[in-house]
C-alpha cells in the first residue's frame, strides 16, 4: 500500500511541465523577508511524513493534469466560454456599425457582460413543460459535457519533439471523431424530450445537417491520417512541425482544411448554417423550452463544441503549439501559441455571422452532400499522392 502511494507520488513528481519561469519566481519569493518565510514553511510542511503542499503543487504541475485542467483544458475552455460570446458580440457589432455590449462595466467595454448574463440565468426559474420528458429534459444538457470534454484528453498542444498530450493512444483521432459524432445525439435528445413542435422541427433539421456534414468531416480527418500515416496525436504534431510552417496541414492539404472548416461551421450550427437553431423562425430550435440555468447550459453547448473542434483544427492543420519560443516559459510557450491560434480560429468562426445570411436547409444539404463531399474525397486522393511523393 505504502509502496503504491510512494510509486504514485514519484510518478507525479517526476513528470512536471517544464516552466523555468516558475523556479525564477520561487527563488524571488524566498528572498522577500516575511513572504519568503511563509513560502519556505509551507513547502516544508509535512503530514504523515509526506510534504503535502509540494505534492499538491506537483500534482497540478503534473503534465497530464496541467494540460487537462489548465491549458488548454477545462480552465481555458471556461475562460473561452466567458470571453468568446463577448468578443463575438463586440466584433460583429463593429462589423454592423453597432456598439455591442457596453452598459455593464462601461470602462472595460462591457467585458463582464457574460458574467451578468449567467447571473441572470442562475436567478431565473427553470420551467419544465408539462409535456416534456422530465428526466431526459434535465439530463441532456449536463450529459453533453461528456463528449465535449473527453476529446480534450487527446489534444496535443505541443510542438515537434515535445508532445504535451495527456493520453497517448494510437487511435486518438478515431476516438475524438467518435466522441464528436456523438454530440448531435444529445441535441436530438434535447429536442425530443422537449416535446415541442419548434423543438421537433429543429431536431429534424439537426438530424439532416448531421449526415450532411459528418461524412465530409470524417473523410477530411481521414485525409490527414493518410497524409501523416498515423492517428496518434503526439506523432501528428511531430510530423507536422518537422521543419517549419510549410509542413503544416493547411499548406500540405488546404482542401481538407477547407472541408474541416466548413464542416465545423455546420456542426456547431453557426451562421451561415444556423439551420437547426434558426432564431427568427424556430426561436433556438431544440432548446426552445429551456429557461434559467438549463438554458445557460444549452447556450454554451455550441461554444464548447466550437472550442473542441477549433482545437482539433489547430492541432491538425495549424501546427499545434509551434511558434517562436518565448524565453523562460518552456512548455508554456507552446501552450500559449496553441491557445492564441485556437482563439484566432474561433474568432474567424464566430464572426462569420456578421458576414453571411443563413442558407436554406436544401441549400445546406446540397453543399454538404455535393461540394463538401467531393472536396473531401479529392483531399484524400491528394493525400495519397502527396504521401507517395514525400
Amino acid at each position: 500500500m505504502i509502496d503504491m502511494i510512494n510509486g504514485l507520488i514519484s510518478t507525479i513528481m517526476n513528470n512536471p511541465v517544464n516552466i523555468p519561469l516558475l523556479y525564477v519566481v520561487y527563488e524571488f519569493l524566498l528572498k522577500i523577508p516575511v513572504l519568503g518565510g511563509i513560502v519556505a514553511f509551507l513547502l516544508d510542511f509535512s503530514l504523515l511524513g509526506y510534504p503535502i503542499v509540494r505534492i499538491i503543487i506537483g500534482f497540478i504541475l503534473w503534465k497530464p493534469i496541467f494540460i487537462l485542467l489548465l491549458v488548454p483544458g477545462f480552465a481555458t475552455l471556461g475562460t473561452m466560454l466567458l470571453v468568446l460570446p463577448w468578443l463575438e458580440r463586440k466584433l460583429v457589432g463593429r462589423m454592423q456599425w453597432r456598439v455591442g455590449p457596453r452598459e455593464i462595466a462601461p470602462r472595460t467595454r462591457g467585458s463582464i457582460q457574460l458574467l451578468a448574463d449567467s447571473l441572470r440565468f442562475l436567478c431565473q426559474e427553470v420551467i419544465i413543460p408539462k409535456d416534456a420528458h422530465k428526466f431526459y429534459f434535465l439530463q441532456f444538457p449536463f450529459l453533453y459535457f461528456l463528449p465535449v470534454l473527453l476529446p480534450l484528453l487527446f489534444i496535443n498542444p505541443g510542438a515537434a519533439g515535445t508532445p504535451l498530450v495527456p493520453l497517448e493512444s494510437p487511435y486518438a483521432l478515431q476516438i475524438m471523431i467518435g466522441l464528436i459524432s456523438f454530440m448531435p445525439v444529445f441535441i436530438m435528445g434535447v429536442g425530443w424530450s422537449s416535446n415541442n413542435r419548434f423543438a421537433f422541427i429543429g431536431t429534424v433539421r439537426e438530424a439532416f445537417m448531421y449526415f450532411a456534414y459528418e461524412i465530409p468531416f470524417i473523410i477530411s480527418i481521414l485525409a490527414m491520417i493518410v497524409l501523416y500515416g498515423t492517428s496518434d496525436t503526439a506523432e501528428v504534431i511531430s510530423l507536422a512541425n518537422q521543419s517549419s510552417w510549410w509542413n503544416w496541414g493547411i499548406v500540405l492539404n488546404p482542401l481538407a482544411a477547407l472541408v474541416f472548416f466548413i464542416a465545423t461551421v455546420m456542426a456547431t450550427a453557426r451562421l451561415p448554417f444556423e439551420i437547426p437553431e434558426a432564431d427568427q423562425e424556430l426561436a433556438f430550435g431544440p432548446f426552445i423550452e429551456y429557461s434559467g440555468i438549463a438554458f445557460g447550459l444549452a447556450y454554451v453547448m455550441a461554444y464548447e463544441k466550437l472550442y473542441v473542434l477549433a482545437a482539433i483544427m489547430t492541432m491538425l492543420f495549424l501546427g499545434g503549439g509551434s511558434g517562436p519560443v518565448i524565453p523562460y516559459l518552456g512548455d508554456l510557450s507552446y501552450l500559449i501559441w496553441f491557445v492564441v491560434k485556437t482563439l484566432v480560429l474561433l474568432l474567424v468562426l464566430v464572426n462569420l455571422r456578421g458576414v453571411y445570411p443563413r442558407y436554406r436547409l436544401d441549400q445546406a444539404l446540397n453543399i454538404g452532400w455535393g461540394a463538401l463531399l467531393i472536396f473531401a474525397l479529392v483531399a484524400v486522393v491528394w493525400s495519397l499522392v502527396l504521401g507517395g511523393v514525400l
Partner: protein
Amino acid sequence: MKKVGTPDYTVSDKLKTHAAALGTAAKEMILPLNITTHYPRERKRQPDCFRGIMLFDPERCISCFQCSFVCPANAIWMKEAPSGRYYPTLDHGKCIYCHFCVDTCPGGALRTTKIHDVAFKTMEEMFTTTEEMVEPPTIIREDETVVDYVIDKEDLSLKRTKEVDELIPDVPESKGVPMVSVCVDRGSCIACKICDQICESGAVSSVKDEAAMTVKMSIDAEKCTGCGLCVKECSMQILRLVRK
C-alpha cells in the same frame, strides 16, 4: 412573361464575392464606421425647428381656438380658466407632434422645443393642463457631448463636440399672420349679434338705423385680432378671415 430566376454566377464570381464580403467584414472589424449616438451621455444636435414638446405663453394667447380646430389628432381641448378665457390643454397620448398648432397660432403663443425624451407614468399624467404647458418639463441631463452628423460625399461620419446643447431654442417670436374678419355678404346679415357677443376685443359694433328699421353690424379692422371666433360662430356663415 418574364421569369425571375437565380442569377448565373461562375465559380470565380462566387469566390470574388466571398472575398469581397470577408474583406469588408475584416475592414469594418478593425476600423468600424460607427454611427451610434450613446444617447443619455451624448445628444444628437437637432435643428431649432425640431418638433418636440410644445410650450405655451398665456400672455400671447387670444383664445381663438385655432389650435384646437386645426389639431388632426384632436389632442388639444380648450378649457375655461378662472379668468373666463379659454386656454389650450394638450393630451400627449393623442398628440402626433405635427406642430400644426404652433404654425397656425396667430398670436405666437405656442412655441417649439427640442425636448423629445419625456416619460409619463400614467395615462392621466399625459393629459397636460395649461399650467403644465407654461413651464418646460424637468429632464435629467446626463449628456456632455453634442453629436453632429456630417455627410461628406458618400460616407456619414460623426463630429463630437464637448458642449451641452440648449434644448429650448432661442428662435425669434412668431408674429403670426395678421388676419382680419370681414363680412362678405352684408345683405344676408340677420343681425343676430352673435359676433358681437363672442368678440373678446370689442371690434364688432352695431349701428341701429331707426328709419329703415335695420341694424347694421360693422367690424373695426384696427381692433380685430383676427382670432376668427366670429367666423366660426356666424349663423349665416358670411364672415371670412382675410389677410390684413
